């Protein structure tokens, strides 16, 4: 059976690529510290020696649109083109192409459907920065095949937060039951408190630093019970109008398991949002 080599949860900040590659007067004052944290974070994946990556993210109204909106979608293509014109325009993100692992895609689709998740699928999916940001931060060579899993955290009505946790648990089970000798890293990105297009956007910190502190504690300690007791679809409006992206962190808590503490925890308080990085090693901490 396949091995879950690492479980990784992260924010996806589209400005990282530009901040980390800029020089001279263009380089923001926080870039060096940010790059140092990302390089340490990257090492947590490298050390796990993965062969394939399951990548959980959410399309930002690129390919998935309101005329035909899936709640959860699994890519099953041999290749995935990456990034879109408006991400190139606003964030300077590069375009690239990733290989897919069709066999694992099929396994997750079959296994998900048989576990009562009515997963949508796509044979031709262009992925966006929710998946390419962690490629840029964690695997910049983009040399491993992926299975993208998209969630709807963006276009209400949304699934309940507990459904994200349940899907995370199911993805863990499915990867562990895959008849393969490959080492799989399961990587997902979301947000802590975030405001986009509202009055609290682009502040000195994220819109709700207190929510961010509690969220980091929940994730770092695998406190699914405490998190689910506090977080509802309604409550997620309070920390910031784009905070439903936190549900992808909840999905990753489901992957990591109840009460399982993360082996690597880091965060960085930036203007507009707090960055946060978590890695678990299901096989035991790797030195």
């Amino acid at each position, binding site marked *: 059976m396949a091995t879950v080599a690492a479980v990784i949860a992260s924010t996806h900040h589209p400005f990282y690529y530009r901040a980390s590659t800029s020089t001279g007067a263009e380089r923001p004052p926080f870039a060096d510290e940010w790059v140092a944290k990302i390089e340490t974070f990257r090492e947590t994946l490298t050390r796990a020696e993965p062969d394939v990556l399951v990548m959980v993210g959410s399309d930002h109204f690129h390919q998935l649109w309101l*005329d035909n909106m899936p709640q959860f979608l699994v890519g099953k293509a041999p290749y995935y083109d990456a990034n879109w014109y408006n991400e190139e325009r606003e964030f300077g993100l590069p375009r690239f192409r990733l290989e897919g692992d069709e066999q694992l895609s099929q396994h997750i689709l079959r296994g998900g459907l048989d576990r009562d998740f009515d997963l949508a699928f796509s044979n031709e999916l262009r992925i966006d920065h929710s998946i390419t940001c962690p490629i840029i931060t964690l695997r910049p060579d983009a040399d491993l095949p992926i299975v993208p899993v998209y969630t709807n955290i963006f276009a209400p*009505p949304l699934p309940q937060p507990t459904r994200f946790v349940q899907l995370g648990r199911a993805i863990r089970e499915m990867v562990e039951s895959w008849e393969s000798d490959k080492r799989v890293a399961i990587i997902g990105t979301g947000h802590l408190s975030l*405001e986009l297009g509202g009055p609290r956007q*682009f*502040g000195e910190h994220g819109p709700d630093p207190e929510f961010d502190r509690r969220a980091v504690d929940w994730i770092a300690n695998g406190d699914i019970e405490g998190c689910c007791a506090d977080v509802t679809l309604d409550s997620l409006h309070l920390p910031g109008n*784009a905070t439903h992206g936190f549900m992808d962190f909840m999905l990753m808590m489901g992957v990591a398991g109840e009460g399982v503490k993360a082996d690597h925890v880091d965060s960085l308080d930036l203007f507009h949002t707090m960055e946060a990085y978590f890695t678990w090693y299901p096989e035991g901490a790797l030195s």
Partner: protein
Amino acid sequence: MSKYLLDKFLYTVDRDPDLVERYRDDPAGTVAWWEDEMANSLLGCHSGERSTWLGLTDEERDVLVRQDHVALFELGAHPFLTLTLFIAMFERDHEPLEYQIAYGARLEHFDLPYPDIAT
């Protein structure tokens, strides 16, 4: 009122570099053209098939022509779509982050709960 159609306008314009420039330069002409040609276009379908019933209200049309992001927020247009398109059109006229901060400041009178964005 059709939040869906407002969102469809923002979505289709933002994702087309020519349309971004056209809307910046000629809002009234672009909105009129878009409503005639694009409002009923089935985006996830092969070309040639159209819906028959979608149209903007007078208020929605006026808000799009005035490029009023505060009114779009009030109407429940998806804030991510509005922000992305407006940054594309207007950030270039400002210092870094100046436009984004002013954009938020113009919305300061909104308290929670914000206008519902469900379509």
